[in-house]
């Protein structure tokens, strides 16, 4: 493409218009969360906040969402309308996400290591077995999983979510880590063994530093799966102080009255929810792409 040719202008014109369209909803959410209530609900749309306010942020960070009315018939759905706090929800999501990242990394590093360097019977069958989470959609198993968690006394715990999120990470994790380990020359490990270090030490000090891209891909995806999960957190967590961030947004949204959403609070809550993702994405976006295409897209 020649500079300043008609193609050149067309290319940038197209891209810049698309960028504006794609980012507009995000921009709109951010500015909505900063507008004062009269400006937010005025019929005249303003495309930037004329006066900036942080009152929605203050409100969702300090107060609960709603008092529980004991006289109401409390069902699973109504339980979600009860009190909570976005700060607690943020902490809950953070704990589950960190837990999922750690468990996924342990599981997939050990697994990937075994599949690359060890010989054992039925190895190929085990590998296919571990790809089952791709083949069997766990969303169609919601009810049996609910019963399983109930029997294991795991309903309403961080552990349940960490296990379920890590389970869905198994195929990608094992696949990524096996690829990462197989790109290391086998002789490197043999030399280390001859020098007399044990397997575990070799894995930690010699091999793992060479698989950083694989480890980052697993980390980024575990974070993505866990931080963004809505449905499992919605169905399997019921107490107020255990609510995850995405479910807390539903809380803010429905607020006191199901038909009258608190948009200021909700846009502020959404911003709080996607800021960690934006930061993660800014630094590690190539690993998101790697995870989806198996490293096929060039920079």
């Amino acid at each position, binding site marked *: 493409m020649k500079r300043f040719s008609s193609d050149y202008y067309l290319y940038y014109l197209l891209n810049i218009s698309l960028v504006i369209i794609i980012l507009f909803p995000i921009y709109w959410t951010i500015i909505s969360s900063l507008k004062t209530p009269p400006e937010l609900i005025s019929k005249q749309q303003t495309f930037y906040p004329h006066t900036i306010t942080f009152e929605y942020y203050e409100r969702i960070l300090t107060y609960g969402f709603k008092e529980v009315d004991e006289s109401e018939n409390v069902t699973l759905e109504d339980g979600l309308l009860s009190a909570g706090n976005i700060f607690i929800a943020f902490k809950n999501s953070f704990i589950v996400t960190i837990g999922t990242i750690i468990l996924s990394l342990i599981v997939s590093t050990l697994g990937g290591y075994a599949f690359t360097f*060890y010989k054992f019977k039925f190895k190929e069958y085990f590998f296919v077995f571990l790809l089952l989470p791709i083949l069997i959609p766990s969303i169609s198993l919601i009810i049996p999983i609910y019963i399983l968690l109930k029997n294991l006394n795991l309903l309403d715990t961080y552990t349940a979510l960490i296990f379920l999120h890590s389970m869905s990470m198994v195929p990608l994790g094992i696949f990524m880590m096996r690829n990462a380990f197989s790109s290391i020359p086998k002789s490197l490990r043999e030399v280390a063994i001859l020098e007399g270090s044990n397997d575990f030490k070799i894995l930690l000090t010699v091999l793992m530093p060479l698989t950083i891209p694989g480890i980052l891909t697993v980390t980024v995806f575990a974070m993505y799966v866990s931080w963004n999960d809505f449905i499992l957190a919605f169905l399997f967590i019921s107490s107020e102080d255990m609510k995850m961030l995405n479910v807390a947004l539903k809380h803010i949204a429905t607020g006191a009255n199901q038909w009258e959403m608190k948009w200021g609070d909700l846009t502020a809550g959404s911003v709080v929810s996607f800021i960690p993702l934006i930061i993660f994405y800014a630094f590690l976006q190539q690993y998101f792409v790697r995870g989806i295409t198996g490293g096929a897209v060039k920079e």
Partner: protein
Amino acid sequence: MRRSDKEQIIGYLLILPAVLLVLIFLVYPFLNSFYMSFHKWPVFGDAKFVGFKNYIKVWKDDQFWNSLYFTFLYTITVTPMLFALAIPIALLCNIKAKGSTLFRSVYFFPVVLSFAVSAYVWMWLYNESNGVFMYGLRYFSIVSDDYNIWLERNSSLLAVNIQITWKFFGISMIILLAGLQSISDDYYEASKLMGASRMQTIWNVTLPLIKTSIVLCLILSIAGSMQVYEPFLIMTQGSPANSTKTLVMHIVDVGLDYYKLGPSAAMGTTLMIILLIITSLQLSILRKDNK
């Protein structure tokens, strides 16, 4: 103990955590789902074998058919919308120019957002009195002043589809882009030598060469759409009159709200069979491609 025996045991121990996770949280519920679908589950007491009764109950449940129909309707409408955005943008991203990586990361960004955030962002845009999307539609006199997009099934479906397209086209775009980048420049040079126009080249050279990527995206989109739950749970809650209730939403309602575990498991099994057919197609295509 022989060295190879020791190696085997260590090998099994290393994969044990992964195997246990899949066994306990996927394979066991999977088998249990089959078992449950052939049993009656009273609130108290033991399960009783009832044969295909649960399946027959599901067969006679109107809402099951409505939900299945709506889920199909969603799938066949959202998939073309995804492609309509993903293919042109993938072609655009394949052009090597200053800033192309930056543009690509922006296009991929909505994928990273959660279902919940994406849904609420768009619900605010669609808000009947203050939403900027509605403001735009009113500004160009496309809709009347008191128009509410959530009052009809088709407009609700379109609203959710736009949201999903915005959120997910990035995945298809990246997969197609990976396909595009694997095409050798020789093809384009040959096509240029033969005097083909740009559109002819795209239609006759580029698209056929990324057929596998297109089929892969198609199947991913279909399999993903059949499992849709969150967007409708958050944005429409099945309204108006349960007409936007998806299959998964119905499965969860029947199982957890009405506590009819048998029929719910029977529906889950049905959905799984549909999805297994779709995903096994996907795997067979990928295997063919790898040969």
